């Protein structure tokens, strides 16, 4: 069984223990352990259950590629499912639980016994569960969903914080092994800004585990010296626990830094997402060892040879007492050496190669280890643990020659460079026959904005394996990178290394080579998703020949490790099945992120109140203090109404309407868009922008105008004010200011660039308040103005400016309610005081603040249209009876040509009318006017629709506006509007102006 060795472990601090729980059991580990190494140290080899068959799973790897040992860590608001035990650093108090089993890890009733997988081959669910039809949703799918999935969903709100960093660097180097360190040294020496990131907590990668020496120094010493040297360079930044997550277009890249996962009680953000803009990127991301495909290779205790070595050397942990090494290359012999050095037993090395001649095998032979050449594993014995292996000839069909008792199998099928970051942004790969792996093709690198390569590779990620080549490739890539970034590189001398002579590896995609169907059903490719060699072969047999088809049909490589262990073996298996070469089969697409990153880190700090910016008027706080029920309008918050003392919203709205109509209402209209249009050609420009003639507007006057887009549809409306000959103030809708201003600039810069016009969006420079109602003028007079407020001095659709009650005010006499009404603009800084003054002086008139709903009702009572209600992007002014606002004299305006198209001039277009139900009820929002019969698709015919519908407090009944076929010609006719329950409401077509049709109230 696995245990802690009495000595060793270069990463653990034996003087600092950590208590932790695993499924509630108390265990002890050391600082520097990963959860996986600590579990092994406590003899816990069973660490999870597989996805499909719920098979027992042990840890197979020691790093980010781990597919099996996934745990839920933490509790309540700090619980996170699906964390890899191999990358979770142990801390005191850690609570870990295993996943995907019931009732317990040891006894999982979901586990499919050894016979059943035969009935559940790749894609079985496409072939069954079809009858009876409702059973999929109600029976099969719920069962499948429940057994699928991995960790439990977090229930509580995340209590942690996350943040974003921005970094601009000349060279981003991903990977802190000796390749990354060398690249950083070389790049740093040029003076370039360098960021070096390493996903684990330790620098140096595998070099120390593998006993590398550089320039006579042991790897650990060289690494420490190099880190010191890098720290002394002010132009170099280095970060551990920071993973290069993704490479995007034009050198944009993401680094995922895990700040407190290893120490959750420390303050500060949990994760930090770096958004790096790098001129050049070097991926020094190393390589990942491949499993071998032999029967029973998924039994807990079968591990990657490199992982076994890591546990022994890095953490002083023995995965087992007796380890059989199985390999097709020399590197795995390092594991045997490490085991022997730790005093552990290696009963045999099973090497698929016929000739085994390298320095490392010779060293093992010299130590008396039994090396079986030309052999393979026929099958692994055991259930939840390994009991032994049976050996066979690699060349045969798997007849066992003998059995070897062991509790660990250390396997190595060769190494695959980590090419993810290279590939994210379009880098291409080539097949390397010597190492049987795909490596980056330097001639087909990802290109940046100027078409040049911006990603380079170093070390094992480059496809080089010896220490000398690793360092050499790193220095060369760094030189190329800094030169591409405009720096001058200093050449580096090649270091001295202790590389041994390694004999070539020999590709082994199936063990033994001639294994039959029964064995192939027990050879796992993807451990987490339970995809076996037989599944890939079945996919090929059934015509799912594209590698993407095979992946999707079998789910190969779709687990949380995204195929880090399984991809190459899987596509080699597919190539064999198709009788094609591996490069012909190709790879699936590598997509970010390299390993999963938290959603929290992606969102960063933008949550809750700062999720999106909220725009506030100068009077916003008053609204909140007075109990306003706010509604979002674009980025603004506007008061919908101001309920008092338990009033319902409807009651509040009715009160606000009646108070305004009877005496005096006040509206915060500051959100209204305000754009200054100025210049010798301003009038000409507005004539193009609006359907009406604006050039004829006299200074001192206001005019309502309609703005269409070039496609003819009504886009915005508002009152245009001529401030002087060359200056106009354009009012837009609340949500429309930015869009309208952009629209103006688009035309001025890109079409009429020789017109002399300047525009400024001054929306937020002014507070604007509507003073509305029969007593409006009285209030203004009470405040006192240094300009004429009389009906003659400031007539309807006129404006004046001056001091009003001591405020610098522009007063526009315009009305959206049908009452005597002024909209008064004061500088934003005076807005709140002015509002307060209006309330104080208006108290005697029962001055009542009203919200957007009262505003809407009052405009509907007057038959005024509202952008967004009467319009929806498909309505033209002609539909709304606004022909009076469309100039017949102008040769051109935006949208004019569009409005001449056949569908726009079709007499059958629905036109605006007023609507009144016969019973006085309020028509449902969105209701359609039904017509006889159905159309060719069997849909009920329609002849109109409601655009606005309200209860009118003024009239005491429902009123509505709508668009109806031939509506204006059908006044008085009764038609039916639908309800969602299938019934209809009898409704009379009427004039849309329900209140004061003569306009007597606003014109006093």
């Amino acid at each position, binding site marked *: 069984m696995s245990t802690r060795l009495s000595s060793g472990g270069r990463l653990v601090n034996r003087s600092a223990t950590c208590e932790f729980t695993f499924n509630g059991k108390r265990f002890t580990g050391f600082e520097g352990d990963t959860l996986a190494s600590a579990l092994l140290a406590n003899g816990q080899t069973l660490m999870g259950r597989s996805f499909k068959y719920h098979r027992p799973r042990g840890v197979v790897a020691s790093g980010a590629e781990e597919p099996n040992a996934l745990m839920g860590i933490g509790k309540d608001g700090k619980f996170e499912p699906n964390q890899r035990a191999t990358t979770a650093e142990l801390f005191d108090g850690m609570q870990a639980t295993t996943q995907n089993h019931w009732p317990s890890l040891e006894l999982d009733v979901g586990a499919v016994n050894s016979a059943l997988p035969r009935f559940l081959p790749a894609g079985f669910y496409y072939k069954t569960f079809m009858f009876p039809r409702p059973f999929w949703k109600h029976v099969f799918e719920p069962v499948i969903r429940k057994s699928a999935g991995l960790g439990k969903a977090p229930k509580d709100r995340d209590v942690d914080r996350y943040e974003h960093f921005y970094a601009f660097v000349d060279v981003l180097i991903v990977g802190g092994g000796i390749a990354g360190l060398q690249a950083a040294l070389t790049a740093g020496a040029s003076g370039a800004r360098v960021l070096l990131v390493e996903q684990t907590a330790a620098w140096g990668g595998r070099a120390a585990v593998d006993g590398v020496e550089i320039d006579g120094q042991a790897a650990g010493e060289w690494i420490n010296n190099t880190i010191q040297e890098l720290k002394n360079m002010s132009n170099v930044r280095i970060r551990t626990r920071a993973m290069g997550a993704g490479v995007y277009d034009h050198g*944009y890249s993401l680094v995922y830094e895990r700040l407190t996962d290893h120490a959750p009680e420390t303050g500060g953000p949990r994760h930090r997402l770096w958004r790096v803009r790098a001129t050049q990127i070097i991926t020094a991301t190393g390589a990942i060892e491949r499993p071998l495909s032999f029967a029973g290779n998924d039994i807990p205790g079968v591990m990657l040879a490199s992982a076994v070595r890591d546990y022994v050397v890095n953490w002083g942990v023995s995965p087992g007492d007796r380890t059989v090494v199985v390999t097709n290359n020399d590197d795995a012999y390092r594991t045997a050496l490490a085991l022997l050095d730790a005093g552990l037993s290696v009963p045999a090395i099973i090497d698929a190669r016929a000739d085994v001649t390298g320095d490392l095998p010779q060293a093992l032979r010299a130590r008396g280890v039994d090396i079986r050449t030309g052999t393979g594993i026929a099958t692994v014995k055991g259930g939840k643990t390994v009991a032994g292996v049976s050996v066979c000839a690699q060349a045969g069909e798997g007849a066992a020659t003998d059995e070897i008792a062991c509790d660990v199998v250390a396997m190595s099928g060769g190494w695959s460079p980590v090419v993810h970051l290279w590939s994210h942004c379009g880098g291409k790969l080539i097949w390397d026959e010597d190492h049987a792996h795909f490596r980056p093709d330097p001639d087909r690198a990802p290109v940046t904005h100027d078409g040049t390569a911006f990603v380079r590779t170093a070390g094992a990620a480059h496809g080089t394996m010896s220490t000398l080549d690793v360092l050499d490739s790193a220095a060369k890539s760094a030189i190329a990178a800094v030169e591409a970034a405009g720096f001058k590189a200093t050449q580096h001398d090649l270091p001295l290394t202790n590389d041994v002579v390694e004999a070539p590896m020999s590709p082994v995609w199936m063990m033994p080579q001639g294994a039959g169907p029964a064995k192939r059903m027990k050879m796992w490719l993807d451990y987490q998703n339970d995809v076996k060699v037989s599944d890939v072969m079945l996919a090929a047999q059934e015509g799912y020949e594209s590698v993407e088809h095979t992946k999707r049909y079998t789910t190969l490589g779709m687990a949380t490790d995204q195929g880090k262990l399984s991809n190459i073996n899987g596509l080699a298996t597919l190539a064999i099945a198709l009788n094609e070469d591996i490069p012909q089969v190709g790879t699936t697409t590598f997509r970010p992120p390299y390993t999963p990153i938290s959603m929290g880190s992606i969102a960063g700090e933008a949550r809750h109140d700062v999720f999106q910016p909220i725009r506030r008027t100068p009077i916003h706080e008053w609204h909140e203090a007075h109990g306003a029920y706010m509604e979002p309008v674009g980025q603004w918050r506007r008061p919908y109404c101001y309920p008092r003392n338990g009033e319902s919203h409807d009651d509040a709205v009715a009160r606000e309407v009646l108070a305004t109509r009877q005496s005096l209402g006040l509206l915060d209209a500051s959100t209204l868009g305000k754009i200054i249009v100025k210049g010798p050609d301003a009038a000409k420009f507005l004539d193009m922008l609006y359907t009406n003639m604006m050039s004829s507007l006299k200074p001192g006057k206001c005019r309502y105008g309609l703005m269409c887009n070039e496609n003819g549809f009504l886009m915005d409306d508002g009152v245009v004010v001529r401030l002087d000959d060359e200056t106009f103030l354009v009012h837009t809708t609340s949500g429309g200011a930015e869009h309208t201003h952009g629209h103006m600039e688009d035309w001025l*810069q890109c079409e009429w660039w020789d017109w002399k016009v300047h525009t400024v969006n001054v929306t937020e420079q002014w507070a604007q308040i509507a003073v509305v109602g029969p007593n409006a003028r009285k209030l203004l007079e009470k405040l006192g103005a240094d300009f004429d407020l009389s009906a003659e001095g400031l007539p309807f659709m006129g404006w004046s400016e001056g001091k009003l009650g001591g405020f610098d005010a522009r007063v526009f006499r315009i009305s959206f309610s049908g009452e005597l009404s002024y909209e008064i603009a004061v500088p934003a800084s005076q807005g709140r005081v002015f509002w307060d003054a209006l309330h104080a002086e208006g108290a005697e008139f029962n001055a009542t603040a009203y919200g957007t709903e009262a505003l809407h009702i009052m405009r509907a009572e007057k038959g005024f249209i509202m952008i967004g209600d009467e319009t929806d992007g498909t309505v033209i002014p002609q539909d709304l009876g606004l022909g009076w606002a469309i100039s017949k004299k102008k040769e051109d305006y935006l949208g004019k040509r569009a409005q001449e*198209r056949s569908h726009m001039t079709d007499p059958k277009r629905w036109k605006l009318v007023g609507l009144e139900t016969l019973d006085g009820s309020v028509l449902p929002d969105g209701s359609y006017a039904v017509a006889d019969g159905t159309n060719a698709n069997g849909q009920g015919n329609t002849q109109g629709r409601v655009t606005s519908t309200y209860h009118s407090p003024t009239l005491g009944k429902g009123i509505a506006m709508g668009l109806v076929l031939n509506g204006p010609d059908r006044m008085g006719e009764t038609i039916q509007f639908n309800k969602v329950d299938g019934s209809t409401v009898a409704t009379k077509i009427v004039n849309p102006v329900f209140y004061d049709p003569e306009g007597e109230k606003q014109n006093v």
Partner: protein
Amino acid sequence: MLILECPYCGVTADETELAAGGEAHLKRFGPGSSDEEFEGYLFHRQNPKGVHFERWRHANGCGKWFHAARCTASLEVFATYTAQIAEPPAEVIAAIRAKRPDWSPE
């Protein structure tokens, strides 16, 4: 995440600082144009897999519209240039041809 250089303020801007505005150098057709001309102007867009002339606005910067010549397949940017021009300037055409010898303007 593209980077484009604003030819007005000289800032090398992230895509998030910019707003894309579709095909460049459209000729406006107004009243008096045929239905076909007007349809083409409003809706028919060059949609090449390759060199594309397009409009961008430095919306969260200097506010100016400008033009870019960009490859929609590799996302390479050949040049950015003024919006106040009816067709791509000769030096932009030359910059594209230097990179894409087989390409020719319509």
